[in-house]
């Protein structure tokens, strides 16, 4: 549910990755250099071999040398003026081909979307945000793919490229001009779509209620005097909110469907304000999870409740089993402030409830949460809560606490270690029931970011995907015809979306073997777990698979991991702020693709005879 892939600090990712130092070679920079060098050497050797077959060794050597020297010389003679001219040509071409129809299509999608997207959903913001980001993403990817893949081949087919290449234009100008032109156009379209999406989501979620006056009841204090009122709002947008207000008539409704409303007094009446809190940009401070088994012994994982590949593992109720998160870097600034100046530690948790027996279904399973100092073992008193299955629950721990022996303690002095660590322990209290957790399910809430800015960052992820697609499609179009370039680019992108699976096959980590073995199993309807009997044909099959897997491993090195960009968009839909490190990381990867594809595209176009039909 929550996006939890760990995002390394930008410089660490760039320099050493998850290795200990630069020399471990796990940094993005080293990886990029290795891949670039490999492609360069392969291109050089491949080009020489082709020339060798066609022209003989001396001429092949001469051509290779000239391509290399002239090519790198040309890279430094790129002209922004020419690139800009070619970019504006690409934009004009697209506009005169009525590219704006995409906006009409998008508008139609939004117009009809509200018919099908139910606001009675438990998480309407997530639904709407997922919808608009997915619609924009697929529309823009398709559009940029078609534009970029067909532009250059059409120029070559119509021979309009003759009049361009006979001007002092370098192949690099042509490739970069195309990439820049389509990127500028795509950016403008995407910006319009983003603005429309923002207003659409906000408009669709906007609603208010009135107070159901029949439900109003006075809240009385110990002395019997009225200290406020409680009641329910009217049923609008498929839900009602219970609420309570103070004696003046001010307060907030309870949170339902991830939002609440402010309540204000207007004379004797209580006025319900607009919906608040749908769009969030939570900034989590993540911890490391560990488990205690029913006997209270630390274990790596909890209990499996049946699905062996489950993301979460479970703890048994009414035992010593617990999920324990250890957070680093907790200090005074981590704590938030109430209006009266007192401080509190905001903790959020998602509980996945697994009932081994039905029990009273209307009654929530009870859990407990407490804080502990990992060094001294001092714990705050147990706080019992009803588990909201699969929803983010917030817990505010005031700085002033009492420990399990009822001594007064404070979080900062007694529960946080000197190096800033604190533990959060969650247990299930009902016998025979289970709570399931993954590492990302509990976090300390840092001050939230701006939802609008987070929304922009989400669309920035779509923009980065678009830029990569344009760069890949333009590169393909320098040596392939339009339809073939598009199909190849689509294959590249689809593989990019399933890169992890692709890599699993390449590394032999997936069930069912390599491509040929999988095909044999499919055709013969053979179970993926059943082993083959060793025969010469099976040996041959495995040998071919070995070669194919090697090729797949090589290809996987240059495949863009589009699932990462999907993850970023999920951050927005799930109300989490996209980390700045992640944005920088993605921008760098996109830039690397643009640079890489532009260089490959440049050499492909430079070595291509434009006038050869």
């Amino acid at each position, binding site marked *: 549910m929550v996006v939890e892939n760990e995002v390394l600090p930008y410089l660490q990712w760039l320099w050493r990755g998850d290795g200990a130092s630069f020399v471990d070679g796990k940094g993005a920079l080293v990886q990029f250099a290795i891949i670039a060098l490999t492609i360069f050497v392969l291109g050089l050797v491949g080009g020489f071999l082709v020339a060798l077959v066609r022209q003989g060794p001396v001429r092949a050597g001469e051509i290779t040398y000239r391509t290399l020297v002239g090519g790198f010389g040309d890279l430094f003679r790129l002209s922004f003026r020419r690139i800009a001219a070619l970019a504006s040509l690409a934009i004009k071409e697209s506009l005169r081909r009525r590219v704006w129809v995409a906006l009409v299509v998008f508008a139609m999608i939004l117009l009809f979307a509200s018919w099908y997207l139910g606001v009675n959903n438990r998480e309407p913001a997530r639904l709407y945000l997922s919808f608009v980001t997915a619609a924009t993403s697929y529309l823009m990817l398709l559009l940029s793919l078609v534009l970029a893949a067909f532009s250059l081949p059409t120029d070559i087919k119509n*021979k309009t490229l003759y009049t361009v290449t006979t*001007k002092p234009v370098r192949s690099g100008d042509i490739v970069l001009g195309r990439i820049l032109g389509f990127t500028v156009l795509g950016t403008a379209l995407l910006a319009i779509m983003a603005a429309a999406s923002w207003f659409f989501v906000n408009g669709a979620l906007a609603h208010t209620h009135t107070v159901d006056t029949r439900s109003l009841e006075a809240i009385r204090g110990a002395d019997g005097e009225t200290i406020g009122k409680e009641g329910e709002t009217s049923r609008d947008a498929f839900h009602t909110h219970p609420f309570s207000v103070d004696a003046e008539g001010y307060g907030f409704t309870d949170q339902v469907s991830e939002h609440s409303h402010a309540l204000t007094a207007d004379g004797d009446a209580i006025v319900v304000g607009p919906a608040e809190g749908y769009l969030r940009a939570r900034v989590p401070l993540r911890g490391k999870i560990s488990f205690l088994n029913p006997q209270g012994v630390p274990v790596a994982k909890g209990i499996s409740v049946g699905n062996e590949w489950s993301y979460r593992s479970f703890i048994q109720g009414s035992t010593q089993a617990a999920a324990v998160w250890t957070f680093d870097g907790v200090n005074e600034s981590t704590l938030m402030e109430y209006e009266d100046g007192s401080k509190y530690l905001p903790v959020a948790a998602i509980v996945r409830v697994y009932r081994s027996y039905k029990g009273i279904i209307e009654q929530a399973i009870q859990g407990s949460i407490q804080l502990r100092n990992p060094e001294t073992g001092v714990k705050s008193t147990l706080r019992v809560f009803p588990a909201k299955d699969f929803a983010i629950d917030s817990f505010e721990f005031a700085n002033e606490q009492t420990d399990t022996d009822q001594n007064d303690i404070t979080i900062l002095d007694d529960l946080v270690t000197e190096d800033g660590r604190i533990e959060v322990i969650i247990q299930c209290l009902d016998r025979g029931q289970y709570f399931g957790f993954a590492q990302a399910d509990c976090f300390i809430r840092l001050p939230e970011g701006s939802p609008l800015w987070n929304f922009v960052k989400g669309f920035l992820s779509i923009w980065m995907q678009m830029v990569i697609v344009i760069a890949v499609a333009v590169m393909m179009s320098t040596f392939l015809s339009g339809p073939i370039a598009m199909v190849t680019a689509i294959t590249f992108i689809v593989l990019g979306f399933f890169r992890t699976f692709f890599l699993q096959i390449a590394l032999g980590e997936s069930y069912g073997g390599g491509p040929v073995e999988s095909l044999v199993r499919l055709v013969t309807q053979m179970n993926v777990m059943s082993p083959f009997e060793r025969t010469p044909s099976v040996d041959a099959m495995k040998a071919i698979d070995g070669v194919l897997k090697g090729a797949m491993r090589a290809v996987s090195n240059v495949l863009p991991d589009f699932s990462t960009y999907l993850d970023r968009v999920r951050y927005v839909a799930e109300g989490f702020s996209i980390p700045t490190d992640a944005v920088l990381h993605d921008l760098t990867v996109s830039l690397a693709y643009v640079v890489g594809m532009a260089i490959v595209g440049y050499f492909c176009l430079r070595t291509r005879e434009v006038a050869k039909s």
Partner: protein
Amino acid sequence: MSGTSPGTAVIETRALSKVYRDFWGRQKVRALKALDLEVYQGEIFGLLGPNGSGKSTTIKLLLGLLFPTDGQALVFGKEATDVSKNERIGYLPEESYLYKFLNAEETLDFYGRLFDIPAEVRKERIEKLLKLVGIDRARKRQLREYSKGMTRRIGLAQALINDPELILLDEPTSGLDPIGTREMKDMILQLRDQGKTVVMCSHLLADVQDVCDRIAILHQGELKELGRVDSLLTVEDVTQVRARNLSDDCKNELRDVIQRHGGDLLEMDNPTTTLEDLFLSIVRDSEERPGRRVVGPQSTAGGDTPAPPATAN
């Protein structure tokens, strides 16, 4: 054969060859065989030959649109594949391959921006060229609406946007009406007069004969003839005398003189004008005096076409 021109060599080809191959590298056709050629500064050079003779291939090799299989093509002393030579080159392709979605002004602006020309100069040059090629009034129309003749004109304008020293014209008069053809030929001559070098290839022999200083005739990828047009076309053993207003007595006297000196009189007749001249004179006449033209015995000679001079062979 070719050393008569005073200028320095702008184009040099040395054993330039081109073999077209299929995807697998197998030879499909040998389009050009060891072409040795030099084109000098300030001349109009014509490449002649039937379809498939290698003229377009030669032009494309000179422009770097194709790579030579063997030999060398040098333009301004640089390899033809060197992009920097294009700063000094203008090229009008066979079909004016231009972007149909642009209008004339945008077209010239786009091509102008590919050169290092200051914006003001570019703007001035666009104005001048639009007037020169006669499409000033259609400057805002998209090229998709242009006739073939207009497309050739804007094609020529884009070839001249950088004020090139060398202009390569592939079938420059194809698709043009006789007036356009004449104007194109006049422009080519003007360019030569400005000191520019023009290389053109054409099927229309009359056009080549009209404007070219030197020609090369290619056939099946091989150079068959190269030299000055006037010397190539001179018939050594025939003398042509052209005179106006000769009386019959004078003509008879001339016949006698030729006979006395042992010559063979091949022809003494009133020459006919060319259809091109006739057409142009009718059009000019029509422009000067709009209205229905009277066609009668008195006008069959071509209106105010000057009377053709008497020709004696």
